[in-house]
């Protein structure tokens, strides 16, 4: 993921399962949501966890998912949502994923 993501853009979360410390919950991998806020850059936790600290920075986004897209048997309302903070290197815009 090289370019900045835009608010309102649809993105898919990578279905990756690496070792080490990651901040992308299992349940959201492979799901598609919409960027609702760009939060700026933060130290990469995947590097910082192993080394104590890091200067490597990652862009962090808040991404909104529909609950009915997230859980096969979601019992609430169709318009219920879940917002998750996800780092840029886990997100792919859907038009790029389709190519």
């Amino acid at each position, binding site marked *: 993921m090289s370019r900045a993501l835009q608010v309102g853009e649809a993105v898919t979360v990578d279905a990756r399962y690496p070792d080490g410390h990651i901040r992308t919950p299992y349940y959201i991998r492979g799901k598609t949501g919409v960027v609702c806020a760009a939060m700026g850059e933060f*130290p990469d936790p995947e590097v910082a966890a192993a080394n104590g600290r890091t200067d490597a920075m990652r862009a962090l986004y808040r991404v909104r998912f529909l609950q009915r897209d997230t859980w096969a048997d979601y019992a609430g309302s169709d318009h219920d949502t879940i917002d998750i903070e996800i780092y840029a290197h886990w997100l792919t815009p859907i038009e790029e994923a389709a190519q």
Partner: protein
Amino acid sequence: MSDAAKGVPGHRGYHDIGGLAEGPVAQTEHVLEPWEKRVDALRVLLGDNKRQILRADGLRHAIETMGEDLYLELTYYERWMAAIIKVLVERGLMNETEIRDRMSAIQARLDIPPARTRPWPRIESP
């Protein structure tokens, strides 16, 4: 989950529990014990800008790699203390023998009965 399953599709960390089936939320609370606050304070100090030894990422990573048996068996601040020990030893700031010896010395100094032994974290060589 065995180590062999790491990295393969479907591998899920034992801490990564969102969406798993669980019973009702027990709405329990307890006033933190003084030793629990001290564990928290140690972690805050070790992670501050002056020291940068154990930030939240490092604490979480240590908790996520101490072993599922410990993760499930220890209480919240026992997990934190085990994680602090794991990181301090792995970074070479102290060794396990020093810690064990000092625990015995403090117990003798305070003249208190031996504490029931709790599981110790899995520590990689520094």
